[in-house]
């Protein structure tokens, strides 16, 4: 179909006018939305989409915002799961998982990092062994966000030890609610416990839950990570809740209370740039020249980073290949968060020594100060982003490697 901006706006508006109901049941509405294709408009029509060009997504978003319509479920890593399955799954797998992921009925977690391999993701040692009619998994994952809520996990495991490390991995969807999977929460430095340790002891995976070919796990994982980097900005999103009329919002809020529990501190880890001016003013620092300098630095960086992302998107829409700009944006977010932290410390002054109820904004500032260190680690560290930028954007020579040959013989932790 040939989409024009006008046509998109027209169609989505008409559809919303006749279907959006703020008093519908959330699940009914989401199912309808998924069937209509307007929930994931850039996806193929065959799979709950509308095939519209990515550039026109903002039009759809605008129309949804205009009537305050609830979208598909987006919290957590469910969209990473959905995109990965869309790209690599079989039709049968797409049938089985996509709808319930988008309606919010199924919660996902990402089982990539292990105690022995984080940045070096291709070094995973969790074993998947194929038996006659299923896969059996043993090993340990760590830093697994939301594992305590999850129905399913995206699992990267080693299925062959005798080939080079990148060739011996296989990607699975694992049912988290089974005997062989044990989830133990990990308390973080900011007091929250959004990530977990996950232990697999003879956990079972049906054969039809293998994603893509055996040994092809690395390329599937790359798809997931590409979407993760893109989503990094979205995850940093806001927590603002408007008071809107309609029962569906209450339902959505209840859903969010559970689903977003692990993420309540995510906006804080991004530095809360939105509070910068307000805090400078509330602490009588708007006349302080040193603070003003740092404030301007922060606001400019944040603004320019947004524009940089838009320039990259615009260039892509003109047909230039998508590059690893995601890494540039992710790196920028770390600098922005650290600059915000610096500013919040300056404006908060001695009160930066306080925590919890005794601290400004009921501990929100303290939470910023204690959460920002995560942003340059989670989803690939700053150092790894810089390697990616250097090698894939700037074309610099690859690091000599010491981990070639059969994985069995590679040095490990």
């Amino acid at each position, binding site marked *: 179909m040939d989409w024009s901006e006008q046509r998109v706006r027209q169609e989505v508006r008409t559809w919303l006018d006749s279907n959006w109901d703020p008093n519908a049941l959330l699940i009914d509405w989401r199912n309808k939305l998924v069937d209509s294709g307007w929930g994931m408009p850039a996806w193929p029509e065959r799979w709950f989409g509308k095939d519209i060009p990515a550039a026109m997504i903002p039009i759809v978003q605008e129309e949804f915002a205009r009537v305050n319509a609830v979208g598909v479920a987006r919290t957590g890593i469910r969209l990473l799961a959905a995109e990965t399955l869309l790209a690599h799954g079989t039709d049968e797998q797409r049938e089985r998982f996509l709808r319930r992921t988008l309606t919010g009925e199924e919660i996902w977690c990402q089982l990539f990092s292990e105690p022995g391999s984080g940045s070096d993701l291709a070094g995973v040692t969790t074993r998947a062994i194929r038996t006659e009619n299923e896969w059996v998994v043993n090993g340990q994952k760590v830093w697994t966000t939301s594992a305590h809520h999850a129905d399913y996990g995206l699992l990267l495991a080693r299925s062959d030890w005798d080939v080079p490390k990148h060739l011996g991995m296989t990607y699975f969807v694992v049912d988290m609610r089974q005997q062989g999977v044990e989830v133990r929460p990990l308390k973080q430095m900011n007091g929250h416990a959004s990530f977990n340790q996950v232990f697999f002891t003879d956990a079972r995976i049906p054969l039809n839950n293998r994603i893509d070919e055996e040994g092809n796990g690395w390329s599937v994982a790359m798809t997931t990570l590409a979407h993760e980097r893109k989503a990094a900005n979205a995850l940093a999103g806001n927590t603002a809740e408007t008071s809107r009329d309609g029962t569906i919002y209450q339902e959505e809020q209840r859903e969010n209370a559970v689903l977003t529990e692990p993420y309540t501190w995510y906006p804080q880890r991004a530095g809360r740039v939105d509070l910068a001016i307000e805090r400078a003013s509330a602490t009588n620092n708007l006349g302080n020249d040193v603070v003003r300098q740092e404030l301007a630095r922060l606001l400019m960086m944040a603004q320019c980073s947004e524009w940089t992302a838009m320039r990259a998107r615009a260039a892509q829409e003109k047909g230039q290949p998508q590059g690893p700009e995601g890494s540039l944006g992710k790196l920028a977010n770390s600098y922005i968060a650290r600059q915000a932290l610096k500013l919040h410390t300056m404006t908060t002054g001695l009160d930066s020594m306080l925590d919890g109820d005794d601290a400004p904004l009921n501990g929100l500032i303290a939470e910023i100060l204690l959460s920002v260190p995560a942003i340059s680690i989670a989803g690939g560290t700053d150092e790894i982003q810089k390697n990616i930028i*250097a090698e894939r954007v700037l074309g610099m020579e690859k690091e000599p490697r010491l981990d070639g040959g059969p994985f069995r013989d590679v040095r490990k932790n």
Partner: protein
Amino acid sequence: MDFAWTSEQEQLRDTVAQFLEARCPTTHTREFMDSELGYDRSLWVALGRDMGLGGIHAPEEFGGAGLSYAETCAVLEQMGRALYSGPYFSSNVLAVNALLVGDSSQSQELSHDVVTCVHSSTVAFIEKSVRWDLKELECSEHDGRINGQKSFVLNGSGTDIVLVIARCRSGSGFGLYAVQEDSVGLSNETIRSLDLTRRLTRITLENVEASKLAEWNESKHQEFLDLALIALANEMAGGAQRMLDSALEYASTRVQFGRTIGSLQAIKHKCSEMLLNIELARSAAFCAARSVSDASERTKMASMAKAMASDAYMKVAAECIQIHGGIGFTWENDTHLWYRRAKSSEVYLGDAPYHRELYLQASGV
């Protein structure tokens, strides 16, 4: 705002880039930076007249091509990259802008000759107070004659016509005046400038005959400065990109410890940071170039673009020297020519801290 280049803009950018690469290598720049004039006048005429770049954003009444400021900025980015040393910035940007801002029949008439490079021109607006507004402007006109001293005039020597901003003694307010460089009473003194590719002049005017082109005031002056800042920021983004390219080129050929230095992580990480800084600064410059028609946004954007460019260009120029090692510190190596440009551009029209403050004020903070 459109965040992508149009195909026409891309074409313009590429044409200019190719021309400068062919005609303006650093050997050429070095040859002319030691000459009396400081630049190659025929190359400037080729760019301004033959290629029709002399008044890209000037409307037809001014003899220009009637395109937008984004096109002018696209050209400047390439000039910054090539470290072009002619009076394009001083004459075809600053002077043309002054004539556009001081719109009158006289300025329109004069503009035709500037746009076609029949005359070279420059704007004399900085005085010893080094304030960017008009508050302490001392240079003044009385009965058609100007007295005073201007400094930091770009390419002021060898310029045919100097545009002078002065206080009107006869009336009130300020005016934009045209002065012939060879007028009686005008003395021109080339100041030794850190940037070897952009000459600076101190001009002393003693009872110099001047013709008034237009009224001038704070708001016109602000517009003139904003436009200058935006142009400069784009030029700086191009220069910064060149510093990264040059660092990358060296890093991919220089071998130490049996490997290219570009395969070393310390160098890689430096280069990634350089790219990030350049991209952020480029975004500011790009967006500013597209916001000049909106007076309420323009000042804010101009200050943001300049603050970002000042820091980015300086940082990458310094890193480029570092990545070159000892050779980067030699006169022979070209890096210092850009480093000098980066340093002088960093402070020209106000440094980063100054513009961070202005940005906040313009944002209502």
